[in-house]
């Protein structure tokens, strides 16, 4: 990738953060929504709140990362601003990457706030290297999933509706609230087809450390990487085709 493209990607991310992400709707969707869900489950079945933290942090990661992707991609395609970006020395693939990394950066910021806040408030010890590793690959897969869905449809409402489908299904099937082992057998197979499953598992490793027996942490990371590539490659091609 050329120096011109890298510079464009950097400034597009900064511009998107300023104009779309760091706004009350994205922040509330990214933080307040997962917090409210977690509290609702906690009040329904009071238990140790700390056990819900990995799921809450994972929810923050997916909801904040994908909070504004429909606007960032579909709105800009619709009003022609994305075409304006393409006039600069950057390829459609570079723009896809910039849009995806904008969500990544916002998700990183929001998830760190929630993770550090939870850790300080509840006295939870966090294995920082494992947490960051899982976080980075999770955000990449969520951002690429969001960008892939957005470029596959035309309208903002279509993108938002389609984005909600995997987001909400994953909340119930990825071990965020209910452990996967407690799900019916056939649903467990579906759980392992969802990236959030590996994020929650990875965060449990980072938070519970040796006491947690889940999927191998390196397998979590590998699967998240595979998910990322599976969304990035066709998503990028679809965006390129829109400008041909």
């Amino acid at each position: 990738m050329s120096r011109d493209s890298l510079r464009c990607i950097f400034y597009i991310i900064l511009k998107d953060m300023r104009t779309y992400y760091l706004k009350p709707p994205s922040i509330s969707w990214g933080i307040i929504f997962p917090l409210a869900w977690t509290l609702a489950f906690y009040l329904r079945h009071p238990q140790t709140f700390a056990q819900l933290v990995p799921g809450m942090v994972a929810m923050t990661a997916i909801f904040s990362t994908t909070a504004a992707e429909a606007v960032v991609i579909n709105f800009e395609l619709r009003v022609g601003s994305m075409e304006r970006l393409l006039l600069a020395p950057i390829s459609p693939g570079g723009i896809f990457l910039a849009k995806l990394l904008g969500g990544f950066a916002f998700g990183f910021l929001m998830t760190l706030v929630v993770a550090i806040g939870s850790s300080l408030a509840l006295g939870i010890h966090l294995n920082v290297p494992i947490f960051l590793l899982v976080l980075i690959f999770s955000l990449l897969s969520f951002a690429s999933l969001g960008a892939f869905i957005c470029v596959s449809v035309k309208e903002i409402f279509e993108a938002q509706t389609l984005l909600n489908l995997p987001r909400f299904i994953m909340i119930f099937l990825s071990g965020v609230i209910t452990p996967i082992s407690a799900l019916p057998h056939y649903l467990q197979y579906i759980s392992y087809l969802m990236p959030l499953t590996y994020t929650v598992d990875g965060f449990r490793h980072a938070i519970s450390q040796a006491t947690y027996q889940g999927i191998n942490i390196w397998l979590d990371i590998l699967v998240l990487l595979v998910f990322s590539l599976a969304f990035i490659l066709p998503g990028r091609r679809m965006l390129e085709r829109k400008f041909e």
Partner: protein
Amino acid sequence: MLPKNEIVLEARGLTKYYGDFLAVDNLNFSVRKGEIFGFLGPNGAGKTTTIRMLTALSPPSDGTAYVLGLDIRENPLEIKARIGVAPEISNLYDELSALDNLIFMCQLYGVPRKERVKRAEELLEIFNLKDKRNTLFRKLSKGMKRALTVASALVHRPSLVFLDEPTSGLDVLSARSLRMIMRRLRDMGVTIFLTTHYLEEADMLCDRIALIRSGKLVKIDTPEGLKASVSEGKSLEIRFRNGNEESLQELKKRMSPFKVTILNGERVRVYGDDIGEICERITKLSKELGMELADIFSFNPTLEDAFIELTGLSPIVMSIEKEGKVNVTG
């Protein structure tokens, strides 16, 4: 820096298909350094598709073009870094101010950090937008948005600028101001590739004009050359009070060998040297066909006449298709 009279843009067999539809058909032309090159044609003629290919936004299906010596197929990013483009729609960022939009463009084009604000301020001054520097883009008037879009194409001081319908939809004063800026840019040595559907604007501004219809190049010449190619004599425009298409077609047939163009249901243009004979025959034929003469005046052939002659289209196609009005006054 390219030497004067150097070719800065050369299209070689440029062709574009959308599925089975041939949008641009084997275009061959070149643009010289420092000229305003007009690219004229009605809606759907292939102007914007051509610009999209020349600015490396969309790859050609066949053929290629060399922009500032670089092949659009092989060096799209290098070309984008060196040219300026103001697209047909004003598509800057609603949530950014006029100044911030220009600074963002400076960032994309790699303008050194220290110079960004200075350059943005300079452009705001040139485009009479200094008072609006902190106004959000969405709150600017249509004319100001257009001006800012053109300004954004100049942040990195490109030597070749593509302006796609820059004055489309602007009020008279904004359009005039933008035309003055285009002339200033040319005087500064910037080459301008201009598409417009305003024939008078092209006549006033362009050093050379390419006429395009249905994706095909019809003719390239200077405005004077195009006008001269229509007729070496005079034109008469005649308006009939109760004209109709059928009678005018009959009149056209019976005016032979004089060339007649029907402008609409009540106006025709007749080209020829012998004004006296034309007037005599028109008077006689109008009586025979039951039409009453309303106005008759003569003038030298205009670019509009050249357009009609060379493309076979009415100039009304150009003005009405876009927005139903023509706003060229100087």
